[in-house]
C-alpha cells in the first residue's frame, strides 16, 4: 500500500508528504500499521550511520507481525513495538525529553496517530512545519464532537454516532491540530430526527 492521495480540501485539513531522511542530531520515528512501509521505504536511501541515532516507536494495530520484524532488523538504536497509541504515549513523551533542537521527527501511518504524535512533538517545542508526515493505511478519521467534546476514533461513515453523547454527527473537513481531530456537528440540528443514511466514506 503506497502513500495515500486525498481529494482537494479546505486549508485546515492537513496535507501529508513523503518521508525523506534529513540531517539532524537524532531521528524519532513514530508509526502505526502500514506506516511501517514508509519507514522501510526510507531505509533504502539512508547513510549507514543513520540508524544508530534513531528511535523507532511502532504500533502494528491490525497488521500484527507483518512488518515488525523487518522494522526491528533495521538496527535502530532504540526500537519499541507496542499494543496501542495510549500505551506508547508516555514513552513518546519521555523520548522527546531527551531530544535536542535538530532532532528530526518522522510520523507515518493513520491520521489519528500522526495527529496525536504531532501534538506531543509540538508541545515539546518543535514547530509543526518541521515535522515530516506520510499517510499510509486506513483513512478512518479521529473526530471530535463539538457538542460534548468527546473523541470518537476510527470513524468510517458520514454521519456517525458520537461514542460519548450518542448524537448523530456529520463529518467536517475542518481540522484542529491541537485536538488532533476533525470536527463533528449534529447532522439533524435544524430538523431533529431527520438523520440521513450513513455512507461509508473512509476505509
Amino acid at each position, binding site marked *: 500500500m503506497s502513500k495515500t492521495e486525498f481529494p482537494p480540501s479546505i486549508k485546515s485539513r492537513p496535507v501529508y508528504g513523503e518521508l525523506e531522511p534529513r540531517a539532524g542530531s537524532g531521528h524519532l520515528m513514530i508509526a502505526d500499521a502500514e506506516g511501517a512501509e514508509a519507514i522501510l521505504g526510507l531505509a533504502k536511501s539512508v547513510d549507514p550511520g543513520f540508524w544508530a541515532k534513531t528511535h523507532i516507536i511502532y504500533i502494528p494495530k491490525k497488521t500484527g507481525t507483518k512488518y515488525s520484524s523487518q522494522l526491528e532488523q533495521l538496527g535502530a538504536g532504540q526500537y519499541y513495538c507496542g499494543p496501542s497509541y495510549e500505551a506508547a504515549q508516555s514513552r513518546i513523551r519521555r523520548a522527546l525529553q531527551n531530544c535536542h533542537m535538530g532532532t528530526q521527527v518522522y510520523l507515518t501511518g493513520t491520521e489519528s496517530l500522526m495527529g496525536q504524535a504531532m501534538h506531543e512533538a509540538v508541545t515539546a517545542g518543535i514547530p509543526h512545519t518541521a515535522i515530516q508526515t506520510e499517510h499510509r493505511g486506513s483513512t478512518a478519521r479521529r473526530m471530535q464532537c463539538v457538542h460534548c467534546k468527546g473523541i470518537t476514533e476510527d470513524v468510517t461513515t458520514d454521519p456517525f454516532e458520537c461514542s460519548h453523547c450518542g448524537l448523530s454527527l456529520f463529518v*467536517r473537513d*475542518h481540522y484542529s491540530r491541537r485536538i488532533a481531530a476533525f470536527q463533528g456537528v449534529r447532522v439533524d440540528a435544524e*430538523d431533529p430526527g431527520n438523520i440521513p443514511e450513513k455512507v461509508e466514506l473512509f476505509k
Partner: protein
Amino acid sequence: MTIQFNDETFRGDFTFRNSEWAIKRFPFPFHEDSYMYSVNMEPHTSYRPGSVFERTFDVDEHYVSEMKDRAQVLADDPLRCQSLPHMTLAGWDLVELIMEAKAREYPDLFELHKNGNRWRWVNKPLGIDDTFTFLDESTLPYGPMEYITRQTQGDFALLDQRDDNLWMDAGMVTTQADWSLDFDIGMNFFEWHAPVPKAHEMGIFVRALKFLLNIQQGQPARRLNWTMTVNPLLDTSPENYHKWGEMKQDLTLENMGSKQHLRVELQTFFRLPRSNALVFPIRCYLISFGDLVTVPKWGRRLHRVIRDLPEELATYKGFIDNRPMMVEWLSQYDDGSPTSDGIWPDDD
C-alpha cells in the same frame, strides 16, 4: 451622555429590544445594493458622533445585559474563554487598551486611577471597584484577558504574530456566528478561515493577512461582517447548535418582523504594544427585520442584497432554506426606487 441600560435577555423569553436611539445608530453593513466578500478594511478612527464608530470600544444600552449573558455562557461552558500560556502578556496589553480607552471616552461610566503599577479600576454600570497590580496575575480574580472581557461587549481573539502569520492563541468567544474557539484555538489565519467559501480563491485572505501583519500601534483598523440569526440569540455557537438550530424552523411570514434578526459584527484590529500581538474585537449588533425596515433605505437595500446573494454565501451563513420567505417579506418594503450610496439612513 448617560446611557439608560436595558434589563433584557438574549435567550429563553428573548426580551432584547433596540430603542429608537439604537436603531438609528445601527451599523447597517451594506453600502450598495449587492454584497460580495472583499478586503473591506478602513482605519478605525472616530467618525460620526453618536455612531458606533465614534469610540474605540462602543458601549450601548445592551451593555449590562450582554455581560450577564456572557457570565451565564461561561458558567455553562468555561471553554469559551481560553488563553495559551504565552498569551498572558497580550492579555495585559488588552487590559490597558480597554481600561485607558473606556476611562477616557466614558468618564461618567469608567475610571482608571494609576499609581505606578498599582491601578484602581471603577466600572460603575457593573458595580466594580477593583485595585490590582498591573502585570501581576495574582491580584485579579481572573486572568487579565478574561477579567477585562467579562466587562466589555463583543468577542475577542488575541492573535500571536510569528512566521509571517497570525495565530489565534487566546480568546473570549460567547457571541460568535457559529464557530468554536475551543476547536480553532492555535490555528493560523488561513486555517481558521478554512470553512469560508470563495474568499480564499478570490485572494481575499492573502491580502487581508498582509494588511493585518502591518497594523501599527496607534493605528487600528476596522471592518464590518454580517449574518442572520433567528431570535436575538447572542450565543449561536456550534457547541449549542443542537439547541438553536431548530429555531430556524419557527420562522413564518407572520413572525418574520420580530423573530428574524440581521446580525452585524463590527470587527476592529489593534496592535498590542508589549506582546506585539494583535487583538481582534468582534462586536455583535442585532436588529430585528421589523426595526430595520423603519429606515426605508435599509429595507429596500436589504431586500435586494438578500435576494441576489450568491448561493454559497447564503448556505454558509445558514439561511438558504429561509431565504425565499425572507425575500418575500422584505419585498413589501422595496418599491424599486433607487438607494443612495453609503450605509447611513437618508436624512428626512
